[in-house]
């Protein structure tokens, strides 16, 4: 060790081509993020399990699963056909006891919780008590994964549209500071205080109940059209109101927020400098205002998206959208414990994935990551 301290540190980065270095840095950054995120997910799932298990509910899921398996085995075993009912019941009870011992259900919870954790991480979520998947399966994993695409389509589409629309409008407004529209947006920004389901009720009253031009809820019209194009169109029609509700909740606040950042950044010296150089207004906007504010905008968007994920059960409930959130609600109504825990686990994954993806976009747009500074640990 003594020799190495005598060596001056070798500046490796400087000698590399900047583009290679950028790729290398982004990769390194993302790897670090992936590892921390995986760790975070595991901790989050473990917390979920702890909460779910405080009343012994995860134990019940496991016990129910064992009972079902053992019953199936005994029923299907031809060599046991000759037994009387009592003998068979006794056999089932015995086998359940053995199986529970084998899986360690008699061990203390701290040890078992790690087994649950493994199940949760590998999406081995057990069997539902009441809810069926469309193909008739009772596996929670299948039920949950079947519902996931509907949720992703709804929230993914509407949020991405909103992100770009608000960014564009915010830029326009920051150009017209103090105009009527600008003051309107500032005045209406507190509308974000009410959640999107709340506006959902209003838009349903206006467009579905009163004007009768759009459907009350659901994902496609009934019966679902066979034609793929018609199916898509019907789905788009059903998405108008939910998107409108999300927009009413977010748009003005997001525009206000973005516009404020643009205004703050557009009074920086380098922007004045660029303007003085005679660069076209659009270029100043793109390179000197939009670029440095993009990471902040994306972070804001990430928080918005996370909030939207959190509200999904209610939102999908109000619009009768057959997604993951509504499944949670139905499961809660039926006391279907495995499905409630299962959807919670999936939502934790979704949130983690959202954070990770936005981190990735962040890494692409944030110069601190690409060029390399102390910002890498951010």
């Amino acid at each position: 060790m003594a020799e190495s301290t005598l060596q001056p540190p070798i500046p490796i980065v400087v000698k590399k081509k900047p583009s290679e270095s950028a790729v290398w840095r982004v990769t390194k950054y993302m790897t670090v993020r992936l590892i921390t995120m995986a760790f975070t997910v595991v901790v989050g799932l473990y917390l979920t399990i702890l909460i779910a298990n405080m009343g012994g509910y995860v134990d019940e899921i496991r016990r129910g699963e064992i009972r079902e398996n053992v019953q199936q085995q005994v029923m299907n075993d031809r060599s046991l056909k000759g037994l009387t009912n009592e003998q068979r019941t006794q056999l089932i009870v015995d086998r359940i006891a053995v199986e529970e011992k084998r899986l360690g259900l008699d061990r203390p919870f701290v040890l078992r919780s790690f087994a649950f954790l493994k199940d949760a991480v590998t999406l081995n979520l057990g069997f539902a008590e009441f809810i069926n998947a469309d193909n008739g399966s009772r596996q929670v994993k299948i039920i949950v994964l079947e519902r996931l695409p509907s949720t992703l389509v709804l929230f993914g589409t509407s949020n991405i549209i909103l992100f770009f629309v608000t960014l564009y409008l915010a830029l326009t407004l920051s150009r017209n500071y103090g105009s009527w529209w600008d003051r309107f947006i500032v005045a209406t920004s507190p509308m974000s205080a009410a959640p999107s389901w709340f506006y959902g009720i209003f838009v349903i009253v206006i467009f579905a109940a009163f004007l009768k031009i759009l459907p009350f809820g659901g994902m496609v019209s009934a019966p679902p059209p066979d034609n793929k194009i018609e199916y898509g169109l019907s789905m788009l029609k059903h998405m108008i109101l939910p998107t409108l509700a999300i927009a009413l909740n977010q748009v003005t606040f997001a525009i206000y927020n973005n516009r404020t950042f643009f205004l703050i950044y557009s009074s920086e010296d380098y922007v004045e400098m660029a303007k003085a150089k005679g660069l076209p207004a659009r270029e100043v906007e793109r390179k000197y205002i939009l670029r440095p504010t993009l990471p902040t905008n994306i972070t804001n968007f990430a928080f918005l998206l996370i909030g939207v994920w959190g509200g999904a059960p209610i939102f999908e409930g109000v619009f009768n959208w057959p997604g993951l959130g509504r499944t949670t609600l139905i499961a809660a109504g039926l006391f279907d414990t495995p499905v409630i825990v299962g959807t919670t686990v999936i939502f934790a994954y979704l949130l983690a994935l959202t954070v990770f993806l936005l981190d990735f976009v962040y890494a692409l747009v944030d110069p601190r990551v690409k060029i390399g500074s102390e910002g890498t640990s951010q």
Partner: protein
Amino acid sequence: MNSIRKFFIELFQYPSAAIGMIFIIGLIIFSIYVVIALPYNEAISLWRGDENTWYKTPRTAQPKWVNWFRQEDLPETFSFNSADQQDTKTEEFSNGTNKILISFPFEYNSELFPQEVSLYFKSQYTAKQPFVNVKLITPDGRTINLNSFSIGRTYTYRLSQDQKLQRKFFGISPEKGIFVDPTVNADSLELLKAVPGTYELIVEGVAFEEGSSLDAELIVYGHVYGWAGTDHRRRDISIALMWGAPVALTFGLLSALGTTITTMIIAAVGTWYGGWIDEVIQRITEVNLILPFLSILIMIGTFYSKSLWVMLIAVIALSIFGGAIKGFRAIFLQIKEAPYVEAARAYGASNWRIIMQYLVPRIVPLLIPQLVILIPANVFLEASLNIINLGDPVLPTWGKLIQNGVGNGALTQGYYYWVLEPAFVLLLTGLSFAMVGFSMDRIFNPRLRGV
């Protein structure tokens, strides 16, 4: 004191803040009034009351003020009770039978039909049940024999559900049939109109014992009730609208206060001590970010308890390590380097003293807008919990009204008032707090000054 006055003067420069502030103060006064005027136990027992408590009100009736916007007024409910109005009842005892004649003459002024017509009987006897015959005399002098039956100690005769009577009126439901002029031919059921005039409902009762009694109560249910209307269980919505205010304010204020103050102290401790404490707090924040908030609340509500207080604690616990911690941390990091903190360290102030006396007070101006903005978020959260059936099972709240309404087809069947009234007060409350909070943010946050 002077600085507070200066702050309020500056705050009222924003019209939205002034309007919001007026609404908030009004809401607080209203909440105090509600809690005094309609005490908790009374409100709960009314709200949880069954058909016996609420039999006098119509089902899903609109509020009275809808008549202001209509050309033709919707009829109101009216009732007669022979026990209260003795002049409606005559008794005649002869040959061991007690003949009781109850007559309710009433003026019906509307061309619209009532929602329901019901008769509630009460009688006292030892062995033999009294027998009654009910008939109606219309303004044009016809006598309609409605029904006859023997009654127990209590008996309810709902005209609207009398199948035999409906056949007699050729399928028109009886509460309409009795008001229709049979000589007028209407093309469809919708075009039927009630004939205004003086009607008389007569109950001829025969009791077979000496000393037995019979009383009847006639209720003609209208389509409007009170200033807020009624729900599917005939309950007066205004109870929930009124009690929703103190519940929402309590939940919003307590959760916002609990969350912001704890978050601030944690952020201060983390920044001051730094090192592994700060690191741990940061990691917890990241984990907290991916915890599905609502799903966990659903788990807690389904598995343990739906009580407002349990939910309140859960909400606070889940929000302590929220995104706000990062903002606070950034500011604390700046303050930590300030010369006066260094001075405090030099004179030997304890860590706790520096955190509480030097770091925390500096952040209060930034904290207040956060707090005010968080209140409406939590008011709506309480409503959200009700929407997904996780509301307090006992309390009447705004969210529960919306949930009841949506769940019982208020939107599809046109009972809009049922959902829109609580939605409107929620919006008013939420917007008032948000408007004040946003304006405070613009005053306190140096980055937003002048923007």
